[in-house]
């Protein structure tokens, strides 16, 4: 058992729903108790979908257990076919139905429905949402994709499939459109985009393409590998998020197809926006990157190599992709954070004391609590991160969108200088947050923010760190904490006052560094001198 407060991924059948809801003409019969229908509202509310997800829940109850749950499944599957007349169905069990072992696949087969029925085995007690989406897509492709004549035989140029976008994916709708535009601009035709927008019939034609473009390895790598093995289709390894990665992607496609690398899009503004002097203040901003592995890896590269930020933390919640995260973390010189434990993520962020978080909806809340701005760059996301406007994160336009996304939460350059110059202005203070963003907490505590210990905790974040440490109750950490308590140096009033003059978003880091510096040298009282000694020591 594992105590969970918030989760980054749902159960695997929600992944299957993301595939089914993204597609057309496919229906999912899910053996599940009352209540599992909650998942519908993820789609109808977060994505504002105007149709119910194509899912029939069998809704068995306690009184049905041990008697006729199998019959309930059969009649639900039969009625679902008759009502919705899908081109194909997928059938499976949610976590509870998995325990009663009714074998939805076998039961559906016995119904002898006139359309393909693909059984799904999604072990709820071992696997999670992304895995469920990947497995579902893989099983569908395996069951439906036939050998086919290559469309490019007509001599009109190479043909690709775009694989990976689903319902409820972070910016999948617009990424798929942007990458299609990019490919077509190179002279590559698109055969099928799947799962999003595809019908089961379209999946039968997948093999007619020359190669596959994998946008989200979490979802499409399994299917792409199978298509490579079975139908000889190579697939793209580069996820085109950011300027460098999009350039790499274009080169990869050019190499696969023999097409020339086209001139760069003229509406790509990111490189100039980032080089323009107004962006100088972004240099070395300390960012913590966390999300699904694909987005985290891509965003770390954008952050360091395209924005000029410093990556001070890198992590992902999907363990399946732990290896590339570990490798990348090594390259960035940070500890990899491979966990889906929200409290651990919060503790790691508090510890790293970044100036900005690039994370998920959950890190937005961590940021709110710690007073650190956050840009959402990965699922899970909430309704406000599913915009009405066209806003991909892939391709050239995606890069433009990312520049805006990463700059918007920050205090602007000159404003930052003014804040540093006049630290004691009671109205214009860093704790009020960036002046172009409204909606901050009212001025409570602004007059004397430093005196309020709760506020201090919120600013500097030892509370969640301590909480998570307690929770893990790791003996080493506990011993370390004890040692720290014994030797904790004391801040003099003057030292404490000087600390307040350090900008709010780096103050936590400064406090910790100074205390570490003092403790290591056996200094018991932290004066203004100690503070600046520590600053000089840690400056690189």
């Amino acid at each position, binding site marked *: *058992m594992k105590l*969970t407060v918030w989760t980054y991924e749902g159960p695997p059948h929600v992944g299957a729903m993301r595939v089914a809801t993204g597609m057309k003409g496919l229906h999912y019969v899910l053996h599940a108790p009352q*209540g599992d229908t909650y*998942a519908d509202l993820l789609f109808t509310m977060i994505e504002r979908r105007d149709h119910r997800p194509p899912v029939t829940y069998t809704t068995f109850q*306690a009184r049905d257990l041990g008697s006729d749950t199998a019959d309930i499944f059969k009649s639900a599957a039969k009625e679902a076919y008759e009502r919705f007349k899908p081109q194909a169905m997928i059938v499976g069990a949610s*976590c509870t139905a998995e*325990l009663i072992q009714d074998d939805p696949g076998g039961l559906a087969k016995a119904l002898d429905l006139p359309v393909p029925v693909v059984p799904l085995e999604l072990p709820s*007690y071992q696997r999670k949402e992304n895995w469920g989406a990947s497995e579902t897509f893989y099983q569908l492709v395996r069951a439906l994709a036939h050998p086919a004549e290559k469309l490019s035989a007509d001599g009109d140029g190479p043909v690709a499939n775009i694989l990976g976008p689903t319902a409820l994916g972070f910016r999948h709708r617009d990424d798929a459109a942007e990458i299609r535009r990019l490919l077509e601009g190179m002279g590559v035709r698109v055969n099928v985009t799947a799962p999003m927008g595809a019908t089961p019939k379209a999946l039968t034609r997948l093999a007619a393409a020359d190669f596959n473009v994998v946008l989200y390895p979490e979802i499409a790598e399994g299917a792409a590998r199978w298509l490579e093995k079975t139908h000889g289709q190579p697939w793209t390894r580069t996820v085109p998020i950011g300027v460098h990665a999009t350039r790499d992607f274009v080169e990869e496609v050019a190499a696969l197809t023999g097409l020339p690398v086209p001139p760069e899009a003229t509406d790509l503004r990111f490189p100039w926006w980032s080089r323009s002097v107004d962006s100088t203040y972004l240099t070395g901003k300390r960012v913590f990157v966390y999300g699904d592995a694909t987005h985290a890896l891509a965003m770390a590269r954008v952050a360091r190599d395209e924005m000029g930020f410093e990556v001070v933390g890198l992590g992902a919640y999907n363990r399946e992709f732990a290896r590339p995260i570990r490798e990348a973390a090594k390259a960035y010189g940070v500890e990899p954070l491979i966990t889906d434990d929200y409290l651990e993520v919060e503790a790691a962020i508090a510890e790293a004391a970044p100036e900005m978080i690039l994370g998920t909806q959950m890190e937005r809340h961590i940021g709110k609590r710690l007073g650190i701005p956050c840009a959402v760059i990965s699922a899970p996301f909430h309704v406000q991160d599913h915009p009405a406007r066209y806003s991909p994160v892939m391709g050239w336009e995606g890069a433009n969108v990312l520049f805006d996304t990463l700059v918007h939460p920050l205090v602007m350059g000159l404003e930052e200088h003014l804040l540093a110059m006049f630290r004691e202005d009671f109205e214009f203070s860093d704790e009020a947050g960036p002046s172009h963003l409204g909606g901050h907490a009212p001025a409570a505590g602004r007059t004397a923010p430093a005196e309020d210990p709760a506020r201090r905790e919120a600013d500097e974040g030892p509370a969640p760190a301590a909480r998570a440490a*307690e929770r893990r109750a790791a003996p080493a950490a506990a011993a370390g904490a004890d040692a720290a308590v014994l030797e904790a140096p004391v801040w003099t009033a003057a030292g404490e006052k000087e600390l307040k003059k350090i900008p709010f978003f780096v103050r936590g880091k400064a406090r910790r560094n100074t205390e570490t510096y003092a403790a290591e040298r056996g200094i018991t009282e932290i004066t203004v001198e100690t503070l600046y000694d520590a600053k000089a020591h840690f400056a690189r």
Partner: protein
Amino acid sequence: MNAPAAAPARGCADAPVLKQRGQHEVFCGLTGIVWLHRKMQDAFFLVVGSRTCAHLLQSAAGVMIFAEPRFGTAVMEEKDLAGLADANEELDREVARLLARRPDIRQLFLVGSCPSEVIKLDLSRAAERLSRQHAPHVRVLNYSGSGIETTFTQGEDACLAAMVPILPETDAKELMVVGALPDVVEDQLVGMLREMGVPVTLLPARRRDETPGVGPDTRVLLAQPFLGDTAGALERRGATRLPAPFPFGEEGTTAWLRAAAAEFGVPEEIFDRVTAAPRARARKAVARVAESLSGKSLFLFPDSQLEIPLARFLARECGMVPVEIGTPFLHRGIMEPELRLIPEGPTISEGQDVDLQLDRCREARPDITVCGLGLANPLEAEGMTTKWAIELVFTPVHGYEQAADLAGLFARPLARKAKLAGLEAAR
């Protein structure tokens, strides 16, 4: 409309009930944790379940609460399913860790889920064992919020019923108001009762120290319509339930208060003195909103068991015409006073086959459809006007001062549609 029409003799009390089974588009009882954990400030709710349970709570609540919540899920893994002995050990370890981290917690609810029920993990024994370990500081109780046994608000019923056996015995003649109410509503209703001289206790209490007593002179007044099991458990402890309509709208609130006043011998002039001003305010405020609701037809999908009392309010005080009133579960004894007040005509349905019910709804083309979040946008896209049912559970809607807000929840979708009419046409 101002003065509700005289009650029809039997109203819908004898109406046949359309019972259906099929796909239920409703939450399970775990969802009640979302408001219960805020109501009971020293309680923690630990769901023993699957990743699905955690995801449900987050989806239902995550939107609203992002302080560290006083609930969590002990997510069962493969090895917990293999051996129940290990599962119990794991549970004890997680609870010990949780209580060590949250010393402010004085009541812990172990909440059963579909998977824990199916594998027959005995949470009542676990609760006893853990109570012994952590007494006297923490008391540990258990109930099931599983979808195979409970629908949405029935989770609160199961939770409160689980508290009944540990209530202390009392001989005092007291009124116990039962049901988790928003603080503002609770303060208003209890304030009026106390002003009339009625001694009031509350279940659930905001803190463990305020736990009410129960005995033969306890009179129970349900503030929520979905608390049948809790009422039954209290009756078995000797208490008597006062039948009454529920405190929605001016009429319902008055009838609800009157049931208590009559039982406790409150003189009519005191009752009038306490209620006259808020009654007048409520009538006036509701009448203003009711103008836009009068004559409009109404279709309620089953959700929280509030459907019947709400249909009564909307029919009698706002002039709406219910076409179908769906409820996940119909407790005849508790609903009788409500059903009598609803004019004959609507279909009363219990349980659900959502596809068939959607067919009926499309056929009826009601002016307003009250339904869950999974159905609302799809129906709007078909041109229907909807009101999300969940908002009725998460908004203060009981009592006099909230009566017009309650009506307003139904008027707003119509007003919005009217404002955006041009937008629609442009499409």
